[in-house]
């Protein structure tokens, strides 16, 4: 089968610059061609929820801007100069050098260059991320590995302190709202959450990672390598929950799993679940008529998204809202070794419901297949901006939640937990209610 990609829903490994940027006051230093940073960042942040900037932005990232001369003569010296001067010019706490295709192909020894900054005032580490080795999700994992291997040191374990790892910053346009929601859920059990991404975290949060008594990973496969590595390096146990929890069914399951893993008394866990569900069902009860009687609403849905959202949203729509899945599509180029296990999650919905799932990054082919699918009425299509015209063509409802989310501004919105599920329902019905019949 052809390996081509149409309608890209990720960028290349160097897109991990945005994972670095998600760490407060961390600075990516690119050893790459002149346009890589701006192009990649544009795709996964400006065109994906509208958040291209921050404390720094692609315009600020130091970059060796490799040209023909470096391709011919090598660019290691150029990288050394760039890091040396970045340390003088940019006010950051940690500098992460990331390599691109060109510098990897011409054989620059970036490792040697970065090693020479061992005595620098600020930590300088290396993430080897040439674009041809995989996508930005792979790049994100490389950055996590680099942080664990090259920066993190052991610390005294603090009981009740737990790290949370979930979706990939910026690849998930809702990443920050989602992390905050996960923090609130975990805190509702009396635990102290630690996350490395987002404002006011930075080095202090990175330094606390090894002090945690538990790593909580809410993701089908991204981050498994990191929690394994943290277990090997610091002996921290981990809880692997298959995806971000959306809605009462998954959120209750998530809270119980965290409670068990962290030794939280059952009564406390059940009280938190009761509070969340009471609030949630107040709104559901008020609007149940709308869910039951809106004639334009679809009963069948299709999702075209990364592993995490395809799983999380289908669980919510099936297990909480009583909808039925059509064939679902996972577009994150999940590594082959995880695919069997991830597909298995789609055979575990309530009432014996199973969903067929396909891994493909070829949007053109996916669209051909969806166009030839019978949805027995209007479909509800949850995907990326690439699906907007498809939905129109099929008279379906379209909700954009996967990269690229081109036509929405996402600030602190989250679909995680009880509140997040309410937001998702608002967004779905915000589209459905534009149509009467």
């Amino acid at each position, binding site marked *: 089968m*052809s*390996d*081509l*990609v*149409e*309608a*890209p829903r990720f*960028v*290349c490994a160097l*897109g991990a610059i945005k994972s670095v940027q998600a760490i407060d006051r961390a*600075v990516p230093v690119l050893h790459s*061609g*002149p*346009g*890589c940073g*701006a*192009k990649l960042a*544009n*795709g*996964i942040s*400006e*065109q994906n929820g509208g958040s*291209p*900037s921050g*404390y*720094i932005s*692609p*315009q*600020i*990232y130091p*970059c*060796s*801007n490799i040209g023909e001369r470096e391709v011919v003569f090598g660019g290691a010296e*150029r990288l050394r*100069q*760039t890091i040396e*001067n970045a340390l003088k*010019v*940019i*006010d950051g706490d940690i500098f992460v050098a990331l390599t*691109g*295709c*060109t510098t990897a*192909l*011409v054989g620059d020894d970036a490792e040697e260059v970065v090693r020479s900054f061992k005595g620098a005032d600020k930590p300088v580490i290396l993430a080897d991320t*040439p*674009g*041809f*080795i995989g996508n*930005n999700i792979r790049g994100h994992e490389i950055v996590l590995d680099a942080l664990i291997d090259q920066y993190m040191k052991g610390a005294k374990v603090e009981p009740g302190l737990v790290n949370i790892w979930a979706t990939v910053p910026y690849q998930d346009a809702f990443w920050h709202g989602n992390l905050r929601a996960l923090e609130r859920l975990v805190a509702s059990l009396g635990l102290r959450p630690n996350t490395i991404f987002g404002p006011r975290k930075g080095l202090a949060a990175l330094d606390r990672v090894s002090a945690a008594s538990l790593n909580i990973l809410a993701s089908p496969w991204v981050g498994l390598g990191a929690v394994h590595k943290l277990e090997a390096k610091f002996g921290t146990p981990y809880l692997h929950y298959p995806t971000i929890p959306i809605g009462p069914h998954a959120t209750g399951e998530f809270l119980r799993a965290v409670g068990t893993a962290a030794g939280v008394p059952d009564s406390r866990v059940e009280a938190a679940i009761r509070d969340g569900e009471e609030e949630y069902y107040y709104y559901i009860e008020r609007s149940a008529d709308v869910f039951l009687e809106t004639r334009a609403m679809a009963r069948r849905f299709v999702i075209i998204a990364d592993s995490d959202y395809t799983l999380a949203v289908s669980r919510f729509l099936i297990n909480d809202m009583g909808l039925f899945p059509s064939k679902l599509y996972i577009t994150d180029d999940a590594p082959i070794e995880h695919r069997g296990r991830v597909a298995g999650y789609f055979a575990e919905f309530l009432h014996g419901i199973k969903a067929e799932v396909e891994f493909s990054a070829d*949007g*053109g082919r996916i669209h*051909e297949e969806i166009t030839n699918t019978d949805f027995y009425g209007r479909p509800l299509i949850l995907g990326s*901006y*690439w699906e907007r*015209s498809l939905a*129109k063509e099929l008279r379906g409802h379209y909700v954009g939640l996967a990269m*690229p989310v*081109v*036509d929405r501004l996402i600030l602190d919105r989250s679909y995680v937990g009880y509140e997040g599920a309410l937001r998702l329902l608002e967004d779905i019905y915000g589209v459905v209610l534009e149509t009467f019949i």
Partner: protein
Amino acid sequence: MAMNLEVTEVMGRENRLGSISGYCGSLRDLSCKARCGGVKGRERCFSQDSLCNAACAQGTLSLIMDAAIVNHGPVGCAVDAIGSNFVLRTMQRLSGAPEHNIRFLSTNLRESDTVFGASEKLKETIRETWRRYEPAAIFVCSSCASAVIGEDIRAVVSDLKGEIPVPISPVSCEGFKSKVWASGFDAAFHAILTDIVKPPAKKTNVVNFINFFGSAKKEIAELFARFGVEPYFLTAGSSIEGLSRLSESIATVSICGTLGTYLGTGLEQKYGVPYVQSMRPHGIAGYEDWLRQLGSAIGKAAEVEAYIAEERPKIEDELQRLRSRLKGLRAVIGMGPGYSFNFIRVLGELGIEVVWTSAWHFDPRYDSGANVPELEFLAGGGAEDIPFTVSDQQNFEVMNVLNTLKPDIYFSRHPGTTVWALKLGYASLCVNDEYTAFGYKGIVNFGTMILDSITNRSFAELFAKRSRLPYTEWWFQQDHAHFLAEEAGSRAAASEPAAAAIGAAHE
């Protein structure tokens, strides 16, 4: 000076036009050196991420409504598809055309491809592009990776020519080829000129209008109707059939000198379509120069004079009122060279003093061999001499200058470059619509926009108070040219005289 259109791929601007991306001096000095052929680029030993020519090439070609793009590279190089799709969909909606996603495929080069080559993969992707969409043409764009591993795109394209009945055009736009990203426009226009444009079957009354996104299409069509000609806007919203007939047009104009030089000059040289090389139609002097030179190219000089005589007086009062309110404001500009030169002039017409300008590159001449007309105008008495630098969007230099000069307002044009001046507490206005200050009404609208920006400062002031700047104190104490080496090719630190020169220019 004739262009060599017979080359298989167009050279980057550094080699073709002597363009530079590093300079520090003044407007007059730059003009003088350009005329004497003495502009030497200076390199930096520290730089920030800029842009690549592939983005310009793919951005230009992917907005042709019925064409398809194949990028031969790792998947990240095809990310332009996302932004271009958004633009294309808007074009479809505005023109009432059927809505569909952009046809833009990536061969998705992987690690093993860099070892074993990927010509078969490219061939399959081009075939699949044809099977899926039967586009009117397929443009095959290179990437850094495909270029470094020596992929022969031309050979693959040539193999497929008998099999696929539409033009398949290789576009050489690997990112490391040029630091001047506008070279990507040339790569795209070279493909159009050599593989799409056909010899004229007849002559028409169409004016080729090279622009970016075309927000003023309606106004321009109405204006041109007065002169008995029709605009054909390209490339956004154009078709392969329409582009194939560019040779039949009566003239070519471009909204931006940087954008249009290759195609405009090429059409003139190859097919005798006159390329109007006036100042651009921003502000009054630019608009009138543009109208007059267009009028002369299409034989409508008298009609143009009548139009000017009729329309210009209508804005006089409003312009006077704006000038009196804007007078004394000090501005800094950071834009591409085409827009920088035009907006120094436009701001002058509004009574605003430009105290410093940075252009993202500089072309000492265009493809026709002509000097940049806007620069000639400014240096020939159209403006006071001002400090002028060339930098490929180096934000650290701009921020250093803003911090030193403390202007009232900063004018940007490129994505992501506007917010930084605001964080320093200055009003900041993005001139991202290419038709900003277009014509008589345009300059009034623009002046009003500026007045609004400097009057209601609430967002800027509150935001600036809450913002931390990502630069060290040390950097703000250095000269902004600190990392600019003295001579082309050198990576040495900046010399004292360079720092002194800009210091003097600031005074």
